[in-house]
């Protein structure tokens, strides 16, 4: 694109399908989850 540089196309909606397993640590912004990575 000429005018826009997309930094991330993270799709939180997708994480509804893959996430929610509850395996993550207690804490959110800098947490990572391998299961829902793009």
């Amino acid at each position, binding site marked *: *694109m*000429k*005018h*826009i*540089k*997309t*930094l*991330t*196309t*993270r*799709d*939180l*909606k997708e*994480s*509804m399908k*893959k*996430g*929610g*397993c*509850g*395996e*993550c*640590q*207690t*804490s*959110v*912004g*800098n*947490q*990572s*989850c*391998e*299961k*829902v*990575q*793009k």
Partner: protein
Amino acid sequence: MIHQYINNGYPIVLDVNSGSVHVMDELSYQAVPLLEPVWEAWQEREKNKNAEAPAKKAADDRNAEAFPEKEPEDGIPEALLERAADALSGLSCPKEEQRELAEELLSLAQAGQLYTKDIYEDYIFDFKNRQTVVKALCLHIAHDCNLACKYCFAEEGEYHGRRALMSFEVGKKALDFLVANSGNRINLEVDFFGGEPLMNWQVVKDLVAYGRSLEEPFHKKFRFTLTTNGVLLNDEILEFCNKEMGNIVLSIDGRKEIHDLMRPFRGGQGSYDMVVPKFQKTAESRDQMNYYVRGTFTRNNLDFSEDVLHLADLGFEQISVEPVVAEKTEEYALREEDIPVLLAEYDKLAKEILRYRKEGKGFNFFHFMIDLEGGPCVAKRLSGCGSGTEYLAVTPWGDFYPCHQFVGQEEFLMGNVDEGILRMDIRDRFKECNVYAKEKCKDCFAKFYCSGGCAANSYNFHGSITDTYEIGCELQRKRIECAIMLKAASAELE
């Protein structure tokens, strides 16, 4: 929901509900709000068309309405493109460029990366009804301290007048409780906290050994962590920590005069000169990983970026300096009138971090760390920190509280290591404490990165765990803006 802002010269657009982040040029930045009503009207029109075609409507679920298919077969409809280009006719650029801009923005919208809707409220409600397990304990191994820090919520480590050290027996029962209430979960976390944990060092060592003895028979893996003021830190303790502690937090506020003002010994003398060399040795012995030097800034150092940089200049690479949370009556408490100064200070710090990186002296600042690509799922983002459900604090005499900040507030006493959780009603209140339970969070762009803020801060300022602490929110929003800007700047450097 869109959040757009300019930071350090970067025009940034955050599409809140998808998590997409875009760095714009000047024209596209101006165009983003102009196209939003056009896109929404078009979506509404499409929805009504679907309503007129029942067979088609049945095939469309709620998600598909909010997030159109990623690759539409027909591209952008000409009628939509024309309306969008019209909406941009006021921009100071040729018509061809206006159409080009409209095309770029609409293609993002069609891909579900711009102008997306919040579709998570029902989902998160179901998520909170799930069975939870206990994942982590904060063991208050010592309600005693050898320093008299002025801002300590533990009241100089004494926690509301009841000095005590945790016995091995109480700690052992706490670990047994954790194992028994963690379900099939393998990874468990135990934080040694205080007061000053090193004032009860033998019990810390004994509990680590006991925890390790539970790992094989119960198929568990403990991650132990420790917070210390450094006064009693020595080579023997450091060697043990480097072997057994997954993380260590080293308390230091920054510049000597700032640190010594707020973190004196009980006799009044400062502690900076004693702890700095020990902390430097600790950081090096851990290869500059798996530790944080952690400070608190107050009204005495609104120029806290100087303290962060001082810690970086001392050679620390993992740094957190965080705002004090204190009663309004305290002279060092942050006030609403300080907010503009603090926001500017975060901006200044972000620029300095970039400068340090370019000079090969980069360091991590805890509150500017953000994972845009691999962050947690939306359920985790919206459901809060886990206090009161997945995380509990244990007092030296074995009482359970929702987290370390609630210790001593009897209305939050949940149970004890002998009888387990007795107040399921408290647990359930925390279970329901998520972003959508907080009116002020629903329309906040930061909700997916902040998770609704701290329940203890909310309670201490408003008497409710489902409210928010306004100063904390203002600072959090700025930190997220800075963190995203740093990602944009890094992408440019790569």
